[in-house]
């Protein structure tokens, strides 16, 4: 007679946390671009000295890279990107005004590859 309410309580105790946890919020599970400096799509007065990207997961430095090209498609980065945790930076040579394109390709430490690109307007 007392088993049924006990069973019902046990089912609620199991199912409710499941529904609550599946029903709310969002969390990251492989390396997506979280933010960038200069910011994605932003306009800056002068060419930045470096571009820094922050990702949602830790990166493998040996298998992650970033290039920056100017309006003419010429590389303006100085070479190999530096990786620290979930952050990747590359220095830039001085460049003129125009649209700079940042291309990134990263491997998160759980071995998932992601890639993407965005632009930054330099000057008017």
């Amino acid at each position, binding site marked *: 007679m007392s088993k049924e309410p006990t069973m019902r309580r046990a089912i609620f105790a*199991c199912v409710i*946390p*499941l*529904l609550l*946890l*599946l*029903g*709310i*919020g*969002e*969390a*990251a*599970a*492989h*390396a*997506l671009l979280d933010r960038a400096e200069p910011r994605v799509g932003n306009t800056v007065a002068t060419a930045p000295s470096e571009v820094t990207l922050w990702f*949602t*997961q*830790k990166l*493998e*430095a*040996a*298998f992650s890279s970033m290039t920056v090209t100017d309006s003419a498609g010429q590389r303006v980065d100085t070479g190999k990107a530096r990786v620290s*945790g*979930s952050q990747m930076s590359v220095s830039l040579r001085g460049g003129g005004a125009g649209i700079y394109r940042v291309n990134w390709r990263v*491997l*998160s*430490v*759980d*071995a*998932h*590859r992601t890639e993407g690109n965005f632009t930054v307007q330099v000057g008017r």
Partner: protein
Amino acid sequence: MDWQVDRVNGALGIVRAIHFSATAVVAGTLIFRAVVTEPASHSAEAIAFGKQASRVAAVGLAIAVVSGAIWLPVQAANITDRPFEEAMTTDLLSTVVAETQFGLILEIRIVLAIILAVCLAYDHLATMRRVGLLSALGLVAAIAWTGHAGAGVGDLAMLHLAVDVLHIIAAAAWLGGLVSLVLLFTMVRCGDYAWKSFATEATNRFSNLGIAAVGTLFFTGIVNARILVGSVHALITTEYGRLLALKLALFAGMVAFAAINRFWLTPRLLLSKESATQSNPVGQITRNSLIEIVLGLAIYGIVGVLGTLHPAIHSL
């Protein structure tokens, strides 16, 4: 080139599944011995079982080492999108070992595997059994750092990692415990009343370990699902989510057989020990445990593949 990528992904899923299963059997067998049979008795039966359990752990360790060695070049091929033949270069393999988190964890696990092998060789010493158990726990828990849980940043990532470690150890305790239980009942069939008494006590203790493992798997599984799937919609509509749903169904099947063993057959085992007229449920418990093992191995097969997929939370 797509078929080559598929080939590498398929191989990665298979090698991970074999490696995870073998490592789980190693750790679970030693957990079973330390938590179930050693505290239950110091009799000749317990010692004889302990030796057999050690042999099972040694076989599991050998499979884990071989599959772990294969995992490295397959992982290298996977992360560079190259066919196996091109990935098998010293340069690439040494880069993966020396410059990735996977490589670091691999090195740590090799050391743990060597310590464990030495401990199993000198298993008659109590200290070596304790160190062996700790090495086995480290060997299985370190897997968490090779997957999704090991890649996060921030407080949620720490929670995910801690939960994943618990999940992996609980899964190992269950699967390895079942293998040990079947081993024990196989020995009981060849033994006398003392064996039966020992097995009954051990089965009773394993029931408690099983309940703790299932409870831990359930709640840590919920947290993992929250982080990697995120919504019921993603559970239903993504490849990752559907595979996870299949895993949950198999888990439910395991729980059902475990419940029959725990609540129906184990009490009968106690009765049959006291009365010669009661039918002996050893055969039924063994059969159910074997079914649970098959379901458990199928779950490890799914886990092997899940780690190669983008989690559902980002696949929508």
